[in-house]
């Protein structure tokens, strides 16, 4: 992994586009995976009914799950690509913290989750916190 290239060597727009690609792919991956797991149902209940093998089969036979994992893999590779051009200390905290906010937005729009004021506050606090911690 090359992290020696300074962020300033890459243009602001290119850096923004790279981080946006990581954030968007990982948000799509998380939302699709969450939708897949909700469509499968309570995994603990499935495991109690048909064992660990049954639970694994339930996950592996869900097409949405594979769509989610594909986007998560895409997010991983776009992270590697971004790390090749930008500093780790910029990419890691920026993508980790922004993903929290985009997930809250996507969770509300696509998963119809009840993102109330409490969850918005949490998303923003954790977003700033992760940035400060990882920076």
């Amino acid at each position, binding site marked *: 992994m090359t992290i020696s290239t300074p962020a300033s060597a890459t243009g602001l727009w290119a850096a923004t586009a790279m981080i946006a690609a990581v954030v968007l792919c990982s948000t799509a991956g*998380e*939302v699709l*995976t*969450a939708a897949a*797991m*909700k469509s*499968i*149902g*309570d*995994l*603990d*209940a499935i495991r109690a009914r048909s064992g660990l093998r049954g639970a694994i089969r339930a*996950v592996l036979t869900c097409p949405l799950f594979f769509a989610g994992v594909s986007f998560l893999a895409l997010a991983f590779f776009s992270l590697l690509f971004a790390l090749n051009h930008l500093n780790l200390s910029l990419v890691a905290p920026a993508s*980790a913290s922004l993903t*929290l906010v985009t*997930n*809250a937005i996507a*969770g*509300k729009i696509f*998963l*119809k*989750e*009840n*993102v*109330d004021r*409490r*969850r918005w*506050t*949490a*998303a*923003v*606090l*954790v977003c*700033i*916190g*992760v*940035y*400060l*911690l*990882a*920076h």
Partner: protein
Amino acid sequence: MAHERLLPRQYLILLMVAICAPLGDTCLSRGMTSLPAISLTHPATLIAAVFTPWIAFGIALLIGFFASYLTALSWADLTYVLPATAFGNVIVAFLARFWLREPISLERWAGIVLITLGVSFVAQGPSLTVRPAIERSATERLAPEKESFGKIAEPAVPVAQEQPR
């Protein structure tokens, strides 16, 4: 199955999500930095790296993370699970402070406080968005015999009779 309050077993799974991800990453990082530089022209060295103890342990932890993350998503909202995952960073910061004796800067303390505050905000609320229509159909699918109150009462009777024994 919607739980306003999570079961202790479910909190344990959230804790697994929080701990396994950052610890797995740390193990991978430790394993990879101790190896000599790997070039893409020799991909075999990358495969050999998988079998070194730190990296193998890191991969095992990340598999554990993914399994518990999927389990958590099956009974809790994404916007509930993610802040819990972020709390793992706080755990790792404390591990680094007290186990590896790494100093924590003021900026990082501020981050720890903000994440902890955020997680406590989410934890006070419900873990799953309740949708009456879907909820009912899911319950019927899981327990089709519980269609009316009369039918629920029937199996309860023999159980009650067995109790005095």
